[in-house]
């Protein structure tokens, strides 16, 4: 379980969030949905340890940590593969930096390569394979972190429709097959509705949780589901309502 309590951070005496609380249960897909500039990126920076919070506590698996830099894996809408390393070398990076047993790590990476249909491309450079394969390789790398928590930075909305769809199914695989707990920040309502188990609606600055919505609909979800469409309208109203109340 990930629990954040009383987290406070500001820039130039302007609070980005103060006393922010969040609890994410094991093996859930938590999505933090908020308008652009609401402070979710700063929250992410605090979680990963890029910047320090002014006050507050972060607990992961009942242990207090200053940040999640040593306990979470990281995924981004960009595959972040290094162009000078082969797919296999890229997927092995967490093992190298974590000083794991490289022989065992290699065996595991090869298993994951075969599970995700990348066999035969281990020694290709990233620019030599398709975007979908690069994403699958990035997923292998995420799994090679051997960490139960995965932080997902930025929405997938910048991707083209087909690539986004394949990445979404890979993320669901990460949760269902590999039992990871996922925390994602996004400003894309559709994406949040398609992926989230627990959807946290965020207000504009100072950021706080307006509402937690539990989505029980079966995954993978499709947008012709009337329940989701109704949900989307409701969320849009709430987010817009919140923005209207911001003093200009």
């Amino acid at each position, binding site marked *: 379980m990930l629990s954040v309590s009383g987290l406070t951070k500001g820039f130039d005496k302007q609070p980005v969030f103060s006393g922010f609380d969040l609890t994410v249960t094991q093996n859930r897909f938590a999505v933090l949905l908020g308008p652009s500039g609401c402070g979710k990126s700063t929250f992410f920076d605090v979680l990963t*340890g890029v910047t320090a919070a002014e006050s507050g506590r972060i607990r992961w698996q009942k242990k207090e940590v200053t940040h999640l*830099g040593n306990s979470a894996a990281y995924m981004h809408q*960009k595959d972040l593969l290094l162009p000078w390393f082969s797919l296999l070398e890229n997927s092995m*990076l967490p093992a190298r*930096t974590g000083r794991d047993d490289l022989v065992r790590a290699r065996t595991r990476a090869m298993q994951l390569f075969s599970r995700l249909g990348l066999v035969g491309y281990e020694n290709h450079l990233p620019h030599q394979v398709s975007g979908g394969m690069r994403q699958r390789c990035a997923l292998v790398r995420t799994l090679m972190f051997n960490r139960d928590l995965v932080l997902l*930075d930025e929405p997938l909305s910048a991707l083209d429709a087909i690539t986004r769809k394949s990445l979404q199914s890979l993320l669901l695989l990460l949760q269902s097959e590999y039992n990871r707990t996922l925390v994602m920040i996004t400003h894309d309502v559709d994406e949040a509705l398609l992926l989230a188990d627990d959807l946290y609606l965020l207000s504009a600055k100072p950021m706080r949780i307006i509402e937690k919505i539990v989505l029980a609909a079966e995954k993978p979800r499709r947008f012709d589901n009337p329940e989701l469409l109704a949900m989307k309208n409701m969320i849009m109203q709430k987010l817009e309502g919140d923005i209207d109340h911001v003093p200009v």
Partner: protein
Amino acid sequence: MSRSNLLALALLLLLFSLWEMACRIFAIPIFILPPPSIIATTAVLQAPVILPHAFTTGLEIVCGIGLALAVAIPLAIGMFAWPWLEKALSPFLVASQAIPVFALAPLLVVWLGYGIAGKILMAAIIIFFPITVSLLEGFKGCDREFRVLFRLMGGGFWQTMRLLYWPWALPHFFAGLRVGVTVATIGAVIGEWVGAQRGLGFLMIQANARLKVDLVFAVILWLSLMGLLLWYGVGWLEKKSIYWKNNQQILE
């Protein structure tokens, strides 16, 4: 051969033929301006005289580049690792560029004598700055997401340097090195003009004093050839080092 290469060659030939004709039509004496045909003949016939000097100058340039790299690479890494070091050193770096380096040449003769040490230092002083700056800019240009990724993977500074920052900065590094190798030649030759016992710069001064202008031009021709060789050498090294930017074969 591509169209642009052909055009360059044609322009070169045109220029040389105009030069050749001008020399013949106006009967310009050889000790004022020799025609290209005589320069080329001298460059070939005098090769046994020129080559040992070219070797000296070449050695100075290569050692100068080596010395510059030995200073620039640790300096760039240090300034990247500790921003306070960059802040402290950057005024000195800029000031070192504001001093006309050629003004130092006579001093270097006083301090280091007529041997090659002063010329190596001269070449190194000129080129270490562009290399340091371009390398540092290359390190800094690394995308934030990649830094976060390495942070979460738990990579230490040196590991991240080796796996991420260094290859990331290589294209910038080579851009700086390309600029560097061309000006390194200038540094070495000027060092030799001021005081030397060997080298192409020395040979030029000698030939100039005796009005052997064809030999002066022949030496310039050899210098240009050396510059070209260095330029293409760096280009070749760049292609080999940045292997992931070549052969863009896309599957599927």
